[in-house]
């Protein structure tokens, strides 16, 4: 046996040529899939004429016009009127005036972005908190009908969002929760908590009971043992779950477009509504999209290990 073990590694290890070919194909695929993303960032710093030129421009003079148009609302004015104004106060002011327009006020982009932040982080915090408690309960105690409950909790995710939205719409209208951040937080929490319980139960199951039992023998109550022994052990699992909840809530569109319209509207339903004069203002749309994607890109790169663990773990356990 020992002789096969020493040679085993070389048998299973692919040859350098195989590795090189595999690497080349994977890298090519990765680069091709990055093209749309790169195009979002490139378009966001193009001027509107550059963005719609044919053939598509890769070399161009970068401008902040897209971002200016994203953050402001503008009105068209006569050149005479613009001449009579005092000197422009900022870059955006200058760019806008060069298009024979003046800034009328801020756009709704940052308020919508703020709503997205509040709703995504609020619901993630709630879903993970509730989910951790429930997962611990399901993991450590005998709960009557636990399996049925867990399966049922999970199956609620199979509902098409529009199907859920019909009664939620009526219910929220009744209780005054339509178009409120609280309503959206509660809804996203309910959607996410099912996945959170499921994922976290798996993570907590992996923590040996003996840890808490030792702590309880040491004089901790069950609650203290949960707080000081189990929670620190479950941090990775909680982080992985939190990223999932956050990504779902951040990206969600169907509920947001049906249940919010004004003050509580999040960024996903807002961004497609960005329009300029005579059609879609693509640099502004690209700028709004780019800003919206940056937090997720940072999360993906910084927390890739937890993310990978969460995706495969969640999938394989089900």
């Amino acid at each position, binding site marked *: 046996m020992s002789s096969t073990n020493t040679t085993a590694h070389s048998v*299973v290890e692919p040859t350098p040529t195989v590795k090189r070919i595999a690497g080349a194909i994977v890298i090519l695929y990765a680069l091709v899939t990055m093209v749309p993303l790169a195009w979002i960032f490139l378009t966001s710093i193009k001027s509107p004429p550059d963005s719609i030129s044919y053939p598509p421009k890769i070399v161009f003079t970068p401008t902040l016009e897209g971002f200016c148009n994203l953050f402001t609302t503008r009105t068209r004015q006569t050149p005479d009127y613009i001449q009579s104004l005092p000197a422009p106060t900022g870059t955006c002011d200058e760019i806008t005036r060069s298009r024979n327009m003046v800034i009328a006020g801020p756009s709704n982009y940052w308020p919508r972005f703020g709503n997205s932040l509040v709703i995504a982080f609020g619901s993630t915090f709630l879903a993970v908190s509730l989910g951790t408690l429930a997962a611990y309960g399901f993991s450590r105690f005998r709960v009557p009908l636990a399996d049925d409950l867990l399966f049922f909790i999970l199956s609620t995710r199979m*509902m*098409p969002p529009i199907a859920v939205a019909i009664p939620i719409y009526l*219910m929220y209208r009744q209780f005054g929760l339509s178009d409120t951040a609280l309503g959206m937080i509660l809804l996203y929490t309910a959607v996410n908590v099912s996945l959170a319980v499921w994922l976290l139960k798996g993570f907590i199951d992996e923590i040996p009971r*003996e840890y808490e039992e030792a702590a309880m023998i040491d004089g901790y109550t069950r609650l203290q043992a*949960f707080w000081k022994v189990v929670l620190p052990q479950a941090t990775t699992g909680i982080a992985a779950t939190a990223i999932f909840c956050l990504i779902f809530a951040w990206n969600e569109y169907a509920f947001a477009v049906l249940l919010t319209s004004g003050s509580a509207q999040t960024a996903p339903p807002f961004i497609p509504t960005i329009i300029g004069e005579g059609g879609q203002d693509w640099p502004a749309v690209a700028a709004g999209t780019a800003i919206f*994607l940056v937090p997720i890109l940072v999360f993906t790169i910084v927390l890739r290990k937890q993310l990978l663990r969460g995706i495969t773990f969640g999938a394989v356990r089900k």
Partner: protein
Amino acid sequence: MTDAPSTIAERSAEMLARATPTTIAVRVRGFSDRAIAWLFITPTIALLLAINIFPLIWAVYLSFTNFRANRPNAEVEGVGLRNYQRVLNDPDIWIAMQTTAHFVFWTILLQTVIGFAIAYLIDRKFRGHAFWTTVILIPMMLSPAVVGNFWRFLYQPQIGLFNYIVSFFTGIPPSSFEMLGSVALAPWAIIIVDTWMWAPYVMLICLAGLRSIPDYIYEAAEVDRASAWRQFWSITVPMALPFIMLAVLFRGIENFKMFDMVMLLTGGGPGSTTEVASITLKREAFESWLTGRSSAFAIILFVAVFGLANIYVKALNRVKQR
């Protein structure tokens, strides 16, 4: 399992038990375990009852009525099973189901082939494979609505990057085809975006499957002089199959419900060529305001997904047991 306590915790627990044998009985303070179990689980159950179960029951009730959400004060009458009969006899709804099936079939096929191929290549463990795995995952983290909206720009007939690249490689003039505007191409425009976004997910699950195959099986095959081709079909594919089937299940459920990407890319058009079930449901519920009828349709959809998923899981378990 060994007799000797293996983990540090077990050992320390034992030591503590030996050191303090008389004090254990005193330790029952604070909440009882039973109280804690309920304290921990009740909030989640209460939330799910309020936001999931109660609306679901309400939807079931509404599906037997002629209620319309834009006329909240009109008298609500029970109509028995008429809503269900109408939905099931509506040819438009069957066309929407066919559109959905076409979309689900092709996205799953493409994503499984691409996802498995990329996972297999990544599992060759070339230098830098961990980095490129992360890069490949990026599309699936993005918002289907927000990114789908930007794909509309890529698909513009004259100025879009997609048309430009296609014409660059094939010589077809970039303004001669409209990905989103033509009846023949619009379904494929959506399938391309969905595959771009979700093949990485299938890849990741397949990768977990490939990594779960122990090396000694390949070593044994090598000793038996099985060819690489034979090893692939007799070891790699069958042992990764439960994982591939799981990925298919998740993508199937998700794409059956597909709404946001289609809504932003085509809105169901041109005409109703890309009108998948969720879009039809949205039209009936929030544009025609046929609340009762759309509730019946929603419940039919839910039962269909749930039933199909259960049959599929049974098949999956049979594969796993082999």
